[in-house]
């Protein structure tokens, strides 16, 4: 048996060891559970850990033949699920008080697919309430810290998943990305996170934040693992009318590629370490024989304003169902209206209320055209920027975020500043194209992310491209000293 603890292994290795019979699923799972027990008190990645369920599933899988193990690509592999994805038999909270004791009567499609692929679902990870935030500080239920520096945020909203993977509590996790919520925490935590093309992964069972922007995606410590998880969860779904069939994958030549470097993504306000490591990565790509092409995405500066109209508008509608009638918490009131208002007042946190109010206003009589419709038109311009760019280049490479993980509490009181941190990531959601963040290195002890963008439906090509760069980079040394 290996000398390193099992929790340090990547998913594909664990799966291979399990298939070969070198280790049991129970050993894999208990190793990760032990790691969680040792570390998660200080990291706070998980909202719920299903120890009994995970061990039972592992024991069940240990009865499988080698062939049965092989035919399930994630057999023996522990996976964490962001807690805005519903799971039967485990609570789902979306990081909010308003869901109360809610236990879903159905599994999200991605969860069904994980189970079919033999994944062992370990538990549910923390997030900003209803995925609204970039630091996981807006969770109403728990605090999550960045494993690289516990005084800093892990990013968000998939901060729990990112921290869990970086702290090696699990090799794989699911996140969701509406404006950067997979890529930004991946960048802050030094892992790989990918937002697929809109429609590539079923949203059925993802508690909707902004329906036209949300995508579930993989988070892992290597591109190979992220791709493995992506292939398990992607594909059409008869429960999701916006999910695309796997047919029609867009391919990209094997290279050398023309790599677009958008000048709007290298402006002011970028952290010096981020700039240095991004430029170093671009140099490596040039060194590999690819052509770096400066391009322009002229409507980039409008992306945040566009996003902060569309996302709250859709969210205000999606969150109306939390009304204290059929599930979740209820604050009693002596008539219906009072019950509604008290429930939603007590159940939602400040950031969620802010966005519900903004979105309700943007859709209300007399304002729809000026706000929502205008934003959807600008969205068209942003999509066209990318359409045009991808006629010239195969991929676009940018920093994932302008900065590194910030200190907890630092951006509590300034929504605009918080929103501006999403400037490099929201465009992919608005355009519906795939984006991937991979580690570009570590600056002053904090990881920096490099973002790859590809044309819509070129998801596989995006993994392939990023995977060629991965061996050229300094290997990540995962933060170990997070034990309390």
């Amino acid at each position, binding site marked *: 048996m290996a000398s390193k603890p099992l929790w340090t292994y990547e998913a594909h290795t664990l799966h291979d060891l399990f298939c070969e019979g070198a280790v049991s699923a129970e050993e894999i799972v208990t190793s990760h559970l032990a790691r969680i027990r040792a570390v998660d008190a200080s990291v706070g990645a998980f909202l719920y850990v299903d120890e009994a369920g995970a061990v039972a599933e592992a024991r069940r899988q240990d009865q499988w033949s080698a062939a049965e193990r092989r035919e399930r690509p994630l057999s023996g592999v522990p996976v964490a699920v962001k807690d805005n994805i519903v799971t039967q038999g485990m609570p789902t909270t979306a990081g909010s008080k308003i869901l109360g004791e809610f236990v*879903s009567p*159905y599994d999200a499609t991605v969860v069904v697919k994980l189970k079919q692929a033999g994944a062992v679902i370990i538990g549910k990870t923390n997030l900003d309430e209803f995925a609204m935030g970039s630091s996981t500080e807006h969770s109403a239920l728990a605090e999550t810290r960045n494993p690289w520096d516990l005084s800093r945020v892990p990013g968000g909203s998939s901060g729990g998943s990112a921290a869990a993977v970086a702290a090696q509590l699990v090799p794989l996790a699911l996140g969701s990305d509406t404006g950067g919520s997979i890529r930004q925490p991946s960048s802050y935590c030094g892992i790989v996170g990918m937002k697929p093309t809109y429609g590539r992964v079923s*949203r059925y069972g993802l508690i909707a934040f902004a329906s036209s922007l949300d995508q579930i995606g993989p988070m892992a410590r290597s591109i190979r693992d992220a791709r493995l998880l992506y292939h398990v969860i992607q594909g059409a779904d008869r*429960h*999701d009318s916006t999910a695309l069939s796997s047919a029609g994958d867009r391919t990209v030549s094997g290279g050398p590629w023309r790599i677009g470097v958008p000048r709007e993504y290298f402006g002011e306000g970028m952290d010096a370490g981020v700039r240095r490591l991004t430029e170093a990565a671009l140099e490596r790509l040039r060194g590999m024989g690819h052509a770096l092409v400066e391009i322009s995405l002229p409507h980039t500066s409008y992306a945040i304003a566009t996003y902060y109209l569309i996302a709250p508008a859709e969210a205000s*509608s999606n969150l109306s*169902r939390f009304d204290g009638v*059929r599930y979740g918490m209820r604050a009693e009131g002596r008539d219906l209206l009072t019950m509604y208002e008290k429930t939603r007042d007590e159940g939602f946190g400040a950031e969620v209320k802010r966005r519900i109010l903004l979105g309700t206003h943007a*859709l209300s009589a007399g304002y729809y055209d000026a706000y929502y419709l205008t934003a959807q038109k600008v969205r068209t311009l942003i999509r066209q920027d990318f359409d045009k760019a991808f006629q010239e280049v195969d991929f676009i490479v940018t920093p994932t975020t302008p900065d590194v993980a910030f200190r907890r509490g630092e951006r509590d009181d300034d929504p605009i500043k918080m929103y501006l941190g999403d400037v490099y990531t929201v465009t992919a959601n608005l355009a519906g194209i795939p984006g991937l963040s991979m580690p570009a290195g570590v600056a002053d002890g904090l990881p920096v992310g490099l973002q790859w963008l590809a044309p819509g439906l070129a998801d596989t090509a995006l993994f392939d491209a990023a995977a060629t760069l991965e061996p050229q980079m300094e290997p990540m040394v995962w933060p170990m000293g997070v034990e309390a």
Partner: protein
Amino acid sequence: MSQYQVIIGLEVHVELKTATKLFCGCSAAFGGDPNTHTCPVCLGMPGVLPVINQEAIRLAVRSALALNCTVRAVSKFDRKQYFYPDLPKAYQISQYDQPLGEYGWVTIRGADDAAKKIGVRRVHVEEDAGKLNHLGQRLGDATGSLVDLNRAGVPLIEIVSEPDLRSAEEARLYLTELRAVLSYLDVSDLRMEEGSMRCDANVSLRPEGFAGSLEDLPRVEIKNVNSIRNVQRGIEYEVIRQTELLAAGERIVKETRGFDDATGKTYSQRSKEEANDYRYFPEPDLPPLVLDPQWIADMKRGLPALPDAIRADLVGRGIPEKDAEVLVLDREAYEYWREATALFQDERLVTNWMLSDLSRLINARGESFANSGVRPEGLVELLGLIQAGTLSGRMAKEVLEAMFESGQTASQVVKDKGLSQITDAGAIQSIVDQVLHDNPAVVQDFLSGKEKALAFMVGQVMKQTRGQAKPDLVNQLLRDSIQKNYAASQD
């Protein structure tokens, strides 16, 4: 008082007859124990998404085409947002600015028989809400309400008329005709009492000489009236109420009103000024609904015969207009008629019997033409016996009643009761002779030109044959015998 013109527009909701709901696979059947036809989707659970039922779209397109609408090849769904416990997501998935069908019409005919086209502004698809059961007498003093979501998500079409209706009577005619058209399409049960067809009426008064848009008139919406008759009553009341208010110099308030069946009055429910901001926006969970124009054209070609065409056909066949109207408005009756006339040539005889004696018996027994114990074949057999002279009209009525009672065929009844008509002249001749012999004075009256006298003698013969003699045969025999035996002696 007459300086106002009545302006009425109707919004009719019709539940479509699908097996499953509009966006999930739950049963759309009426009834069921509370919340037994529910799933995460129609409960509005977190994370659920809608998937469109193609049969609902087919039925909606069929309806729109039958109402002469143009059907969009591309339409879209929108969210209509408001909080209410019977609306699980707090938004209804509906269609806002790109409805499935537009620019249609329904033709109505008033007492003056002049045809009038009533515009159908739009036909769109949407999901129904659930049902609230109030704990207490009325909503106002209920201590709480219980939510049953079995109906939540059942597919509906909303049919919105132009404000072309000018009286409560026109509204009644419109609804009657609309229901008749839909009844031929197999799209809905159309039961107003079960809520599978519901009507809201918008009523306003236009002052003479008012040149502005109708939209600017203060409009009162009478909500959810449960029968065509009550829509008419509600409008009648509302027209009087508004007229009196205006005569008294008061203003009409834009509001929603209910209709009280017992008093025949409308009552204020809520003023619409404040709360009514539905914040429609395109449903991001549903891509556009795209229909193949060829398929739409095929659907149009495949429509069944509709009331207008059926009316024309019936009248062309010599059926009186009044009778044709009765048949057309009751699809079951019309289908009964079609089956019967396929087996029997004399269509007027079929019509007469169906709309008089058969109707009476069916109604008395609480049956309908579709489930009546006497099927078209049975009626046709009976009519055949009349035509062959085996039964008189009066006997036939008796036989028909017996057929309802016993479930027997006409010939079985005739045989059991020994009812068949005497058509043998020899069997009647002796009775004729006897009657002539017993009534010399009457014979003389007849001979002196009083035709009525003959009718008396026919009656006497019929009486003695217990009605079984064939009347025109009796008539003939009497004339012949008088001619032969009495007229001669007068010379």
